[in-house]
């Protein structure tokens, strides 16, 4: 795991965060529920809460689907390529590329779905980007949520020990967290890279 330079995080006084959706996207409840599930995955391991708000302009975390240039200097590039991006704390901006085929089923845990379809599992991307919103950078551990790439047809939503260690370094552990995560990465995966 890694952090943004300076290890920014949400301050102590802001541990009950709100999130809201870009009203112009007119997202369905089904789509919104994907993000709710993604927030829960992080809330289970750290002492932060995430509550949905209907007030986009004042929420701590703002989620929106956009196409091309959308005002932050980081334009999306159309189908595939860059899927989403999010900013370090306490910015809270979380943007996704409107031009992707997003799968919103949310069935099951990690695994594959039909690989011949060039579609991206929305919850997998949401869990990853929330990691950025919380202050995590990219990880070199291939099975971790914070690994930068995601193969089409892949669903990867379970936090690994690498993700949990990273986010708990920033915020501490949720007192109710029982320590259960998906299988930790192998020693070889952790130790074969250089120190950057």
């Amino acid at each position: 795991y890694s952090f943004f330079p300076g290890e920014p995080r949400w301050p102590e006084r802001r541990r009950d965060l709100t999130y809201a959706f870009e009203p112009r996207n007119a997202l369905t409840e089904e789509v919104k529920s994907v993000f709710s599930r993604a927030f829960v995955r992080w809330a289970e391991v750290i002492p932060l809460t995430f509550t949905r708000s209907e007030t986009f302009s004042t929420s701590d975390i703002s989620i929106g689907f956009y196409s091309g240039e959308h005002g932050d200097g980081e334009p999306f590039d159309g189908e595939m390529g860059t899927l989403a991006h999010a900013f370090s704390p306490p910015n809270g901006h979380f943007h996704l590329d409107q031009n992707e085929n997003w799968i919103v089923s949310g069935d099951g845990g990690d695994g594959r779905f039909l690989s011949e379809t060039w579609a991206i599992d929305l919850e997998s991307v949401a869990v990853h980007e929330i990691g950025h919103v919380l202050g995590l950078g990219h990880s070199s551990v291939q099975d971790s949520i914070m690994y930068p790439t995601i193969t089409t047809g892949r669903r990867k939503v379970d936090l690994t020990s690498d993700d949990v260690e990273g986010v708990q370094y920033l915020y501490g552990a949720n007192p109710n967290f029982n320590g259960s995560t998906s299988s930790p990465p192998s020693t070889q995966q952790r130790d074969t890279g250089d120190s950057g």
Partner: protein
Amino acid sequence: GFYPNSSAVPPDLRRSATGNVWNSFLNFTGCHAGMKVDGLYKLKKYFQHFGYIPETLSGNFTDDFDDILKTAVEMYQRNFQLNVTGELDELTLNHVVIPRCGVADVVNGTSTMHSGRRAYEVSFTGRGSRFNAVKL
């Protein structure tokens, strides 16, 4: 578009392999330092976007496989635990075209992807008892 599952994506909207905006990079397979290939500047822009080439070097990228690109390729290969060849081999380019997050891997020229604290499991054997500890 939002779809309940992948089979619900209408056939005419299913993406082909050529739909990936980065797939043209596969044409650079085999390129190495010293070569000049049309369009290589686009790959430099890709690496710059993700932090592998500093913003200070922005501007007129050429199609030359120069030291700037070689350094970027080597850092990318290290980050993704590929063989560090400094060349655009098939494995590296197949990885480059995978859809990904837009957040940079490298900030201010320093890769942070390997900066996590490592856990070492050690075992101690005491008098009649054995216990384990994890050192962070």
